[in-house]
């Protein structure tokens, strides 16, 4: 007689808890459970017991597979200047991620221009100025309160004129519930016409990660993701939630505050973290 649904639920319970405690959003965990149960129903109890962990890992790696991608193979052959716009909610680590990427690009021999597109928050322009100075990279900025789209445009014109390889556009943090700020983000995209829009997510985030990624994707379209603060011992289940929500490559994870603390994302590393 095949294993029943109730028994299957019991088998899955521990693994379900492990995922939830790793900050995988509830909606994603329930979808994974549905997938696994579909594959296990009808097996004998003994077979199911042996297959359950493997089936779970397979369901998860299928989600993560959709978010694998190599940043450099994506950009190296592309026409230059290659324009990247960074977006995300307040405090997620956008400005720091830009500095780290600029550092990485410079080490690989590329030239960069950074656009100080956060003209709203106290000290935002100065924060980028400090990074640009540390890294010896050109920063384009306007006055506090200026139009972010104008700063982006200015930086792109500069990059074209001086044959720079990359333009990295910083933007202000914003809540996906703020209609005006979502509209402002759309406007910056319209003016800058970026080659890539990167969503910067915070590994400390719980279930809201899905909501954020979905909404930002709806408004401007996300091409890639960077997940920050993975070094804070957050298991990083948000990686799974975001991958599930928008199915876009997770290019890098942030593992600290230094310029070298941003490394390529690998699915097997994530599996090890959740199950290891």
């Amino acid at each position, binding site marked *: 007689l095949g294993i029943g649904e109730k028994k299957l639920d019991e088998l899955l319970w521990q693994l379900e808890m492990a995922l*939830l405690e790793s900050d995988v959003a509830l909606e994603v965990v329930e979808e994974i459970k549905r997938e696994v149960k579909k594959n296990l129903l009808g097996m004998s109890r003994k077979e199911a017991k042996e297959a359950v962990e493997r089936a779970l890992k397979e369901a998860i790696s299928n989600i993560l597979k959709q978010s694998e991608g190599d940043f450099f193979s994506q950009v190296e052959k592309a026409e230059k200047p290659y324009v990247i716009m960074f977006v995300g909610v307040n405090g997620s680590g956008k400005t720091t991620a830009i500095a780290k990427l600029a550092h990485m690009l410079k080490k690989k021999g590329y030239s960069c221009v950074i656009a100080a597109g956060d003209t709203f928050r*106290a000290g*935002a322009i100065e924060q980028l100025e400090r990074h640009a100075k540390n890294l010896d990279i050109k920063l384009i900025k306007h006055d506090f309160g200026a139009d972010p789209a104008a700063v982006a445009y200015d930086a792109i014109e500069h990059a074209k004129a001086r044959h720079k390889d990359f333009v990295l556009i910083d933007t202000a943090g914003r*809540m996906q519930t703020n209609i005006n700020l979502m509209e402002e983000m759309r406007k910056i995209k319209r003016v800058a016409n970026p080659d890539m829009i990167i969503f910067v997510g915070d590994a400390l985030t*719980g279930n*809201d990660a899905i909501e954020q990624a979905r909404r930002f994707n709806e408004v401007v379209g996300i091409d890639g993701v960077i997940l920050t*603060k993975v070094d804070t011992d957050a*298991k990083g289940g948000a990686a799974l939630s975001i991958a599930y929500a928008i199915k876009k490559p997770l290019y890098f994870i942030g593992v600290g*505050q230094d310029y070298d603390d941003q490394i390529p994302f690998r699915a097997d590393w994530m599996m090890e973290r959740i199950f290891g």
Partner: protein
Amino acid sequence: NFGDALKSAFRKIANAPFIDKSLIKEVVRDIQRALIAGDVNVKLVLEVSKRIERRALEEKPLPGMSNREHVLRILHEELASILGKGRELPLKKQRIMMVGLYGQGKTTTCGKLAKLFQKKGMKVALIAGDVHRPAAYEQLKQIAESINVPVYGGGKTAEKTVKEGLEKFSKYDVIIIDTAGRHALEDDLIKEMKNVAKIANPDEKILVIDASVGQQAGKQAKAFNDAIGITGVILTKMDGTAKGGGALSAVAETGAPIVYIGVGEHMEDLEKFDATRFLSRLLG
């Protein structure tokens, strides 16, 4: 969405002629899902739901109370007992130290608190105790200028900056100390925080936590509390969609009440904490 999960749970129970064990189990499962989706700590959810299940079966509904009201009342009581009441900061001469993880809103909240005390007629000053983040002093300086409050900063170490700032502002009523973001595993930053707390001997040590923080909330809150002792919690970014379930763990681990919530980026975006409103929002 989980507001619907709970509505359906209570529809089941409302239409039942009497409460039985399997129905309660079903309703509790829906409650669990709502709480987990709201970022409440998973182990805490399991604990609370066991209690709700037991009480729903053992206790008689109060006279005139429907099945649904019976379970809802128990649910609210259980969560409210963890959360406690809000507490506003007293209007007295004091030093307030702000701590927390990266990007939670500490620096911004320093400004909001400063504005709040200033409006009540007190002499307020700010100390830029974050010497690590690029332009942290600059950020606090601009915030201070916008609300017309003096600020001290620019020292080489956090300890030195705080010591000098306290000397400079000795005649002030309320001194608010900003500190750098840090997390539990960074020994030297935890040590720095302990040193600053020793030097400043603050009346209030406030843990600033983002409403969207997930399962890490309790663990990190415990680490901050073990290090310096937390006296209050401020939950920021409640103007988003996040439910703030992590706050339950932060309160449970620190024993400290929530003192305010942040509802935006401007200096006036600070509200008193209302436990009832928080819970009805958490439960969708």
